[in-house]
């Protein structure tokens, strides 16, 4: 297979403008003749669906939620980056581009990231026009804060609810188009499979979660905006329903999966409290603007935090990375926390926690300012833990948060399957091996508002798409397979629930393919996963029927795909004999710092499904750096 990334030629700064000028256009009268399916209505999907409908395309949008406003994007707290340089602190498109490339540990495509930085400024304008209530200064101008991995203040925010406000903005634009009849919105419908006809993506199979009905839908192009797969670990900061099914099904139909092992572990989450734990809660990274992270210097020191004098505390991030300190990138901060805890200096139950302390900030700025900045986050912390962070330092621990890997796409966001576009967290494109804070919202909206409206037109204008109908054999075969899957899951009649299998799979992944990985561990995981999968298909119980709302069945269909996908992640992690960003292989390090191997691994690993998840075929897209120099990431 020839992996063409279709990056336009010419200087970096001009690639996107030139490409836009050269892309073919669909004339306005013809747009309404094209049908586009958008799966997922989070930031990426809602922005894409609304914009394509504004342009005149016929859009059908799908989500398993009861409303687009519930998508996981809603939970993003901290903010969204943009190279506006409103603070005049030296920011620029180039600097945002460079920070993102470096933050990603030089494992992302230059051209994509540069375009992302370019359109970042338009996103803010667009959202303001929609009425997104971004935080303002007293003078009436937009306010900014700082985020990890950057030394400028370029993050726009709406209290601690930035994702909510951006999603509501996109949701409102989408509902406007629904009201106008330009988008047909299908809520509570889960995509079960992709339909490929003559080598092109031409439709999907869905299951109505309320009635159980399996349906097929045909279109000229399919956009997957279905989010990330962090829930393969069971415990993560993702919403409970997030899953890999749509992406994995597309993979099984021929779409390559890029860098599946690149997972982001977020350093500031509330630690696990018991084995009933159903998810983990993120404490926004913005807290690291004012909070100081520390552990006791002495092992097993179990005095209360206020009993530990200043000189017996180790502010380890400030010590190890003096120039970025508490704002070091996520992968680095997470590993440093793990290191401290592995060293026996962790705090709280089980020693799996470190302090995030606001005492100094409260002294310096006053309680009121801290309340204004983080009030809702402090409240959330107190609700969950029963402790008041204004008087006792927060306890935090790293947790799975984001997946940089995803379906492989070219510069136009099209996968290797013509007609299948992938947007937002579901694609692999912009964050390399580690994503910087406040960059996922930026990417989702860049993809949906500013990239796909052009590149989709370019694809459709090329023509060659004959009409397909859902009674074609490809549709019937895929629908029958989905029916069969549901039927099988309902009739195993074993003893264990989907949640119990999901938990066990998550534990395997966390232990062997989590924050630190090594060859022996990954090989163990590759032995355990198929064993667990076999038990799943023999010993699962799913009470109830397939003809009504059945949440256990929904969970089972998703866990079934995680069971296979987990293997692909481990295969990828095992093959990458280097450490980079969120992928830390213990064999490859320099005193705890990730050691890249640029000679052998400066490529995107794009995996092809072969019928056996343990034996995918590797395709390499070499990453060419023409504008930045590969350097060891240093935040010291």
């Amino acid at each position, binding site marked *: 297979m020839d992996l063409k990334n279709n990056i336009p030629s010419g200087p970096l700064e001009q690639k996107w403008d030139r490409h836009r000028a050269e892309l073919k256009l669909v004339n306005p009268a013809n747009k309404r003749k094209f049908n586009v399916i958008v799966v997922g209505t989070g930031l990426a999907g809602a922005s894409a669906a609304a914009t394509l409908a504004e342009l005149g395309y016929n859009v059908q949008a799908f989500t398993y939620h009861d409303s687009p406003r519930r998508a996981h994007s809603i939970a993003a707290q901290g903010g969204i980056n943009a190279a506006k340089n409103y603070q005049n602190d030296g920011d620029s498109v180039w600097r945002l581009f460079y920070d993102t490339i470096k933050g990603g540990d030089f494992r992302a495509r230059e051209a994509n990231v540069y375009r992302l930085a370019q359109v970042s400024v338009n996103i803010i304008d667009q959202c303001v026009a929609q009425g997104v209530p971004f935080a303002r200064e007293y003078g009436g101008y937009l306010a900014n804060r700082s985020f990890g991995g950057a030394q400028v203040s370029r993050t726009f925010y709406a209290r601690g609810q930035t994702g909510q406000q951006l999603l509501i903005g996109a949701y409102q634009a989408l509902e406007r188009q629904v009201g106008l009849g330009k988008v047909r919105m299908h809520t509570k419908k889960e995509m079960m499979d992709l339909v490929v006809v003559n080598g092109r993506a031409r439709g999907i199979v869905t299951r109505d979660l309320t009635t159980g009905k399996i349906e097929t839908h045909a279109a000229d192009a399919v956009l997957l905006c279905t989010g990330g797969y962090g829930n393969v670990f069971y415990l993560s900061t993702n919403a409970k329903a997030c899953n890999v099914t749509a992406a994995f099904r597309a993979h099984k139909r021929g779409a390559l999966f890029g860098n599946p092992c690149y997972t982001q572990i977020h350093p500031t989450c509330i630690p696990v409290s018991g084995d009933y734990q159903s998810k983990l809660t993120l404490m926004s990274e913005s807290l690291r603007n004012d909070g100081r992270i520390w552990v006791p210097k002495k092992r097993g020191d179990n005095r209360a935090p206020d009993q530990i004098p200043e000189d017996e505390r180790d502010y380890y991030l400030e010590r190890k990375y003096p120039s970025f300190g508490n704002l070091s990138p996520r992968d680095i901060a997470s590993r440093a926390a793990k290191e401290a805890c592995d060293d026996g200096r962790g705090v709280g139950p089980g020693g799996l926690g470190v302090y995030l302390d606001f005492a100094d900030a409260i002294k310096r700025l006053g309680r009121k300012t801290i309340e204004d900045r983080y009030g809702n986050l402090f409240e959330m912390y107190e609700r*969950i833990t029963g402790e008041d962070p204004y008087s006792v330092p927060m306890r935090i621990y790293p947790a799975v948060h984001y997946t940089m890997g995803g379906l492989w796409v070219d510069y136009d966001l099209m996968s290797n399957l013509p007609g299948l576009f992938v947007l937002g967290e579901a694609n692999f494109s912009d964050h390399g091996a580690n994503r910087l804070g406040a960059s996922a919202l930026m990417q989702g909206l860049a993809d949906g508002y500013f990239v796909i409206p052009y590149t989709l037109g370019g694809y459709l204008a090329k023509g060659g798409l004959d009409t397909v109908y859902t009674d074609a054999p490809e549709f019937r075969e895929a629908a029958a397979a989905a029916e069969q899957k549901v039927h099988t899951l309902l009739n195993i009649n074993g003893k264990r629930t989907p*949640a119990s299998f999901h938990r066990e799979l998550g534990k395997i992944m966390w232990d062997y393919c989590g924050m630190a990985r090594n060859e022996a561990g990954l090989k163990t995981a590759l032995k355990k996963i198929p064993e667990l999968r076999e038990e799943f298909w023999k010993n699962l119980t799913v009470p109830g029927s397939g003809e009504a709302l059945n949440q256990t069945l929904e969970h089972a269909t998703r866990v079934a795909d995680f069971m296979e996908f987990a293997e692909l992640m481990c295969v990828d992690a095992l093959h990458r004999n280097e450490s980079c960003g969120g992928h830390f292989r213990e064999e490859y390090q320099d005193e705890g710092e990730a050691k890249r191997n640029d000679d052998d691994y400066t490529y995107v690993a794009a995996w092809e499904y072969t019928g056996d998840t343990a034996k995918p075929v590797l395709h390499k897209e070499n990453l060419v750096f023409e504008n930045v120099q590969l350097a060891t990431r240093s935040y010291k």
Partner: protein
Amino acid sequence: MRLRLHIWRQAGPDAQGMLKTYDLDNVSEHMSFLEMLDVLNEQLMEKGEEPVAFDHDCREGICGTCGMVINGRPHGPLARTTACQLHMRTFKDGDEIYIEPWRATAFPVVRDLVVDRSSFDRIIQKGGFISVNTGNAQDGNAIPISKTDADRAMDAAACIGCGACVAACPNASAMLFTAAKIGHLASLPQGQAERFSRATNMVLQMDAEGFGSCTNHYECEAACPKGISAEWIAAMNRDFAKAAITSRD
């Protein structure tokens, strides 16, 4: 701790529902309310029984998916707290807890504690947006907005669309939800152009969906997990009245 739960069970929209009683042991005070229900459901499934259907997703109080009436109060006893953020330390050993779905004509029960809230989306479709197309907006700082206005808009925009206000209202009115959206957009310069038509169209749709009218009980404000103030309802009524007077069609 040990709890006795009385939970509304209803197999489908047209089925007869009833409260069923379950005893649950070994509940930890650190569990969230939904984790307590997870544990119950796991036990039911291990016995081959159908678990209790309830809606949830983020479990962080922001997506607005969860919602159930707990001991007569939407989202339970704690003020400004969604069901998913409620923790069992609020209850004590031996407590009896009644758990029921939102009850409103415009929110039909789908199953057990799950209701259909698509009526909210249809209210938004009638005007809960600013009619701008993507792509060529002016610079974000071109319209300065005072911090006070931005903060006010944000107060209203914080609504999570959960429907607790409707569930709490004796008339099952959706005034607070609708007023929050109208208030968010009316607080900003961007929202002025369509301000009055927006108020009219959204309020009419609210009525068409079968939500009741407001007779000033303020139960909505008390139940709202995001602290949306009932003052927004007064503001909405003013815009609605003004629209009626100035309407030229």
